[in-house]
């Protein structure tokens, strides 16, 4: 879409949604011609961009100006995109609500009383408001795929290492992925073909090249082996969600797909969330030890460097972040490490083994991306020990543990609010994931919700 129109639209929705941290005065375009010329792109504010404010949604970085470009930004720019905005996120990417950015909560343009989801809240919101063609996000637990579900757009987390993370402010390095939002599956394929690739600046990037996908996939579901993630369905109590999912399954069968069910070890699945919590917080507390307000970041005055650090970090991180750092740091203590961090790393392997087994004889594994539509802004914390919370609401973290590609597409609407379908494939096999997603997109034929702004 026209980048100037895009900026105009962003201004139109900003006051009500709070989706952006920076809206550019004019589009930033380095090259006119390219595979993605005419694409207007928003960037989650944890991607470093030269000479542009890059805050990661945190007070401590609220004055940080990027001094280089993240690799993925250069790649997209080389193919002609126009950058129009940096979007809001949960502080440092650590949250799932979009409520904890230092600039205030992001509101869902489809219903302003509701969350857009997080942590890539602003990117999901600007997509829902049809303000851009592509929005970059990052996904450590489900931070692209869950907001995509709440905002009725496509959200992709490719294979771990498929897109360079050079220049992306980290959360938990063993789980962090660059992800992104588009309006349809084919756009998500085209975007990945540009963004994917080995990067000397990020030693975790894959050497294996992404094959050309866009001119290969057909979306033909005939003969495709689709497994249903049964444990997730079993703990969803929302009837409408189950009905929408069943409609998808029926349509798949009509198209000739071979549908089966997978039941994973329930006892093990209940450990997904605590395992994630331990790993992510332990890694985060180490990753963010450099945010001290001495050499960059928002500094507070102090008597000596320790005083400066202490005051800057107390002022610079919200309570939730400091809480998570304390718990992460507890898990890394010598006396606790074996029982907490290492235990979590071992359970991670067992969980990934389950997922590998589930995918061994099928093309994809699918389930609703969330058990319900976007929560209200003031929604109370869920019952964090329920199976619904431990399994159905947070199953997509398996994609981060494993590094396998995983994406969300719109599955339908419940009372005029969207809910997504999650599709998982084997490691490096984005092609099959996109092929099935394209087929599902056709049979679902999603009708976009008209938003409030």
């Amino acid at each position, binding site marked *: 879409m026209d980048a100037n129109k895009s900026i105009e639209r962003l201004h139109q929705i900003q006051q009500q949604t709070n989706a952006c941290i920076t809206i550019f005065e004019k589009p930033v375009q380095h090259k006119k011609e390219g595979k993605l010329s005419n694409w207007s792109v928003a960037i989650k504010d944890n991607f470093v961009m030269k000479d542009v404010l890059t805050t990661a949604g945190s007070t401590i970085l609220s004055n940080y100006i990027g001094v280089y470009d993240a690799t993925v930004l250069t790649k997209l720019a080389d193919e002609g995109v126009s950058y129009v905005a940096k979007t809001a996120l949960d502080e440092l990417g650590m949250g799932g609500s979009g409520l904890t950015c230092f600039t205030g909560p992001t509101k869902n343009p489809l219903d302003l009383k509701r969350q857009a989801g997080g942590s890539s809240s602003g990117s999901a919101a600007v997509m829902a408001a049809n303000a851009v063609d592509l929005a970059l996000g990052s996904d450590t637990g489900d931070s692209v795929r869950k907001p995509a579900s709440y905002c009725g757009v496509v959200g992709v987390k490719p294979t771990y290492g498929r897109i360079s993370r050079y220049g992306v402010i980290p959360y938990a390095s063993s789980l962090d992925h660059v992800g992104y939002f588009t309006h349809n599956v084919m756009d998500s394929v085209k975007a990945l073909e540009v963004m994917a690739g080995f990067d000397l600046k990020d030693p975790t990037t894959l050497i294996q090249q992404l094959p050309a996908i866009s001119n290969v996939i057909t979306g033909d579901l005939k003969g495709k082996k689709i497994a249903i993630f049964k444990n997730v369905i079993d703990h969803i109590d929302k009837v409408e969600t189950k009905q929408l999912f069943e409609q998808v399954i029926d349509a798949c069968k009509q198209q000739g797909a071979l549908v089966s069910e997978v039941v994973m070890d329930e006892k093990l699945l209940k450990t997904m969330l605590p395992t994630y919590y331990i790993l992510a917080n332990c890694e985060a507390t180490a990753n963010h030890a450099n945010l001290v307000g001495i050499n960059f970041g928002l500094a507070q005055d102090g008597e000596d460097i320790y005083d400066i650090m202490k005051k800057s970090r107390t002022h610079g991180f919200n309570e939730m972040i400091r809480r998570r750092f304390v718990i992460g740091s507890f898990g890394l203590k010598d006396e606790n490490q074996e029982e907490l961090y290492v235990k979590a790393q071992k359970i991670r*392997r067992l969980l990934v083994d389950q997922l590998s087994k589930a995918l061994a004889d099928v093309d994809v594994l699918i389930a609703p991306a969330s058990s319900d539509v976007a929560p209200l802004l003031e929604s109370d914390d869920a019952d964090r020990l329920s199976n619904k919370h431990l399994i159905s609401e947070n199953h997509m973290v398996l994609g981060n543990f494993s590094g396998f590609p995983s994406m969300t597409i719109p599955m339908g609407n419940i009372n005029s609010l969207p809910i997504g379908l999650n599709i998982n494939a084997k490691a490096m096999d984005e092609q099959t994931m996109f092929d099935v997603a394209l087929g599902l997109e056709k049979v679902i034929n999603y009708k976009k919700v008209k938003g409030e702004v």
Partner: protein
Amino acid sequence: MKTFNKEDILVLANELQFTLNDNEIKNIEKEFEVLLVQLQLMNEIDTSDTKKMVYPFDAPIAYLRTDKSDHVLSVEDALKNAPKTKDGYVIVPKVVK
């Protein structure tokens, strides 16, 4: 089973270079209670024969880059975001007074 009291929390916060008020400490204690129950679920899983998984893929990167400097940040850029600088250095309060 692990325990976690106010003193532990304060020691950790001090090591992490930030402070917590009483309300924040209470919230951490509450969070830890939930975590303890969740950890119990983890303890029920037998991992005695399981190797830890540190990264998604056990695919070692085997390359050597050429021995020349690459993507170097200039001193000017490196100091651009520092609160106080002088002659190419970051200024902090005097250590020896």
